[in-house]
């Protein structure tokens, strides 16, 4: 049987082709901004364009990258996890405490990963089985976990000495271990989003949850998996942070401030807060942009107080640019 609307219309259309017009390049605006910042800083500072400095930048964003990868996938599926940074604080503190109390390092790492996953699953359970918005649920758990981290520290800085030092500071073929882990996680997430049905389910759920459910996708299981995954990656990031710093201190760099930097990177990368759209490449560009800006401020001798100012400004500019790009492509 064959049905055609119009006799002359082709029933089967041309195979999909990508057009690489200047406007069609994905993330063109983001790449342009990044290029401007890089060129500007490289001209003003001799140290910027050295191997050492570039590795330094990438090393600093490794922890954020692991978190941002998970968040990209979750936000594409229409979810939100505001507690990843606080999850990092708790898992890092727990791992540090275990090691400081003489437990074996692998044991502490496994506990950290399991703890992170468990926290993520709890978030997932609350989100899927109540109708509370994920933003609210995870904001609550973020605050709660920040407090738990303080309790675990009990006012002391927990040092892990030389344990985990290799993982945090050594290099393989000139590339830091942490960066290798971050790139692997980003790559795996990107491939999963593009080439697995699991990843496409995330797009479907974020695009229209009702339709996804009616099409036979087990939305509840998928969401639990996604929240579990962001939890697991938070645990991993906790171990990475601990390895890099060698200690975990109360009120450290983790917590909500880390979370905000991660959300900023993902949003700068063009992932939709409403779900249904997101790319890991965009997230990676967002991470690099934030890392480069922070580094540039440092090299150009700005006070570190300008750091949050710059993150906020970059986020605002990128969000506006994304919206304008979306409006323009919708009109065409």
């Amino acid at each position: 049987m064959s049905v055609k609307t119009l006799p002359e219309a082709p029933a089967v259309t041309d195979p999909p082709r990508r057009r690489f017009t200047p406007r069609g390049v994905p993330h063109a605006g983001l790449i342009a901004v990044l290029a401007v910042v890089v060129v500007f800083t490289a001209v003003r500072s001799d140290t910027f364009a050295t191997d050492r400095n570039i590795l330094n930048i990438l090393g600093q964003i490794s922890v954020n990258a692991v978190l941002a990868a998970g968040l990209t996938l979750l936000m594409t599926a229409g979810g939100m996890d505001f507690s990843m940074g606080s999850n990092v604080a708790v898992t890092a503190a727990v791992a540090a405490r275990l090691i400081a109390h003489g437990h074996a390092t692998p044991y502490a790492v496994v506990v950290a990963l399991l703890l992170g996953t468990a926290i993520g699953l709890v978030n997932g359970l609350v989100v899927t089985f109540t109708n509370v918005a994920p933003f609210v649920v995870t904001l609550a758990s973020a605050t709660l976990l920040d407090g738990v981290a303080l309790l675990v520290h009990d006012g002391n800085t927990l040092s892990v000495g030389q344990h985990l030092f290799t993982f945090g500071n050594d290099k393989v073929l000139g590339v830091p271990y942490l960066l290798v882990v971050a790139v692997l996680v980003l790559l795996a997430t990107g491939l999963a989003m593009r080439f697995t049905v699991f990843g496409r389910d995330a797009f479907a759920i974020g695009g229209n949850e009702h339709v996804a459910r009616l099409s036979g996708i087990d939305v509840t299981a998928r969401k639990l998996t996604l929240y579990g995954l962001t939890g697991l990656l938070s645990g991993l990031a906790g171990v990475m942070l601990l390895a890099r710093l060698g200690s975990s201190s109360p009120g450290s760099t983790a917590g909500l401030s880390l979370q905000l930097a991660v959300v900023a990177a993902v949003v700068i990368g063009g992932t939709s807060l409403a779900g249904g759209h997101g790319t890991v490449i965009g997230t990676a560009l967002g991470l690099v942009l934030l890392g480069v800006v922070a580094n540039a401020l440092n090299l150009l001798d700005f006070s570190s107080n300008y750091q949050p100012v710059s993150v906020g400004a970059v986020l605002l500019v990128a969000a506006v640019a994304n919206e304008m790009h979306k409006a323009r492509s919708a009109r065409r």
Partner: protein
Amino acid sequence: MTPVVRVRAVTKSFGGAAALKGVDLDLYPGEIHALMGMNGAGKSTLVQILSGVHQADGGTIEVDGQAQHGLTVRRARRLGIASVPQRRELAMGLTVAENVLLGDLPTRGRTVHWKTVREEARRALSSLGIDIDVERTAGSLTVAEQTIVEVAREVRRGGRILILDEPTACLSARDANRVRALVRTLRDEGVAVVYISHYIDEVMAVADRLTVLRDGTVVRTAPAADLDPAALVRAMTGRDVVSRRAERPTPKDEIGLSVRGLCDGRAVRDFSVEVRKGEIVAVLGPAGDAQSRLFDLLSGRRRPESGELRVDGTPVPFGRIPASLAGGLRCVTGDRRTLGLIPGLSVDENLMLAGDRFTRRRLHRARDLARRAAPLRHTYGVVSLAGNPPVGALSGGNQQKVLLAKWLQTEPVACFLEDPTNGVDIAAMADIHALVDDLAARGTAVLLASSSAEEVVRLADRVLVVSAGRTVAEHAVTDITRDELVATALGGQPQ
């Protein structure tokens, strides 16, 4: 009399594809001017140019004899051109009064003067003969009332050229009559009304003049009295659309789908139906009646109070989507926007969304997907301009075909179709009817929920008429004429 709007030789193309190829249109005050045409004929583009959303590539637009270049939304509004889109644009949490006066709330000092708000809103509504309590919230109104409030708001703002895009789509006969009465009042007040509708009978009843568009050109402009429905269809399609009852093999004796004693509140009361394999049974009722609840109940989105469902003789539990799907029942929604398709995903992904999940695929490759989707596009006649665009970019008819293909390719035992030709043009409607015929001919039990008597007469073997939640009649379709059917359902179709 001079036209209030005079459009001459307007052209517009989008990325090389010509949407309008030199269109002329005259609108006079105090007339209802129907704009007819199939999906993609250029109606929306023309309307968007009039209301300033798009700018014409060539040609002229004169309002009150003054040429308007570079018409923007704001300029158009100042000139009194107002448009009421298909989707309601009211602030649902605010009251009717606030919505009517939105952006122009009367104040005393710097605070809103609520008494004046209510009085002004009441005056605006009653001057158009509308009886709606202005203190209700917009969200609590029926769709028809929302349309009416929106029209009243535009008129109060000084709209004298009013564009209505399918104002009666998805309305029951009584509600549609209310909207049409309002439109006639507007005409008598001297407003020029541009009326877009798919319902031919409705257009013949309400319009003073008609303009028929096809492929971006005006095929015909004439007083409505000079045209009959058959001529109108010919003008729209360029051919006589053949959508007559097709011969199908006699249904088998096995029962494919049986529903017994289905109850859900006041909407569905003790509904029972048995559909044999290869048979099409229609449930006809006024829009919003029992038949429009069946999708939620049968698909498993909502658990009924009581009832029993059997597919191919096997009991299927209610209230669980996976159970419904596993039982071999496929439910195709009539609301493709919110329950049918994912607009941001590509045509191919939408086509294979359910099928790939049933076969438990793990990997996803675009080229592989395109290869599997190609025969579906061909069989179901899905036409897209460029490759594999997001499904949201397709015309309504094509979206509907994607939706049908998505579900019917999975070779269901039983199939529930809800308004399968909702908001599609006549040619696409004929195609979809042929697809449904073919589905039944392959031995699927088809339950069809519809609010269109024509569609029921065209497709069904038997028809159940529901009203106020109850089954009021059952007929073999050959025993009853369309008019009798409409009479039984009491105004199932806007007329």
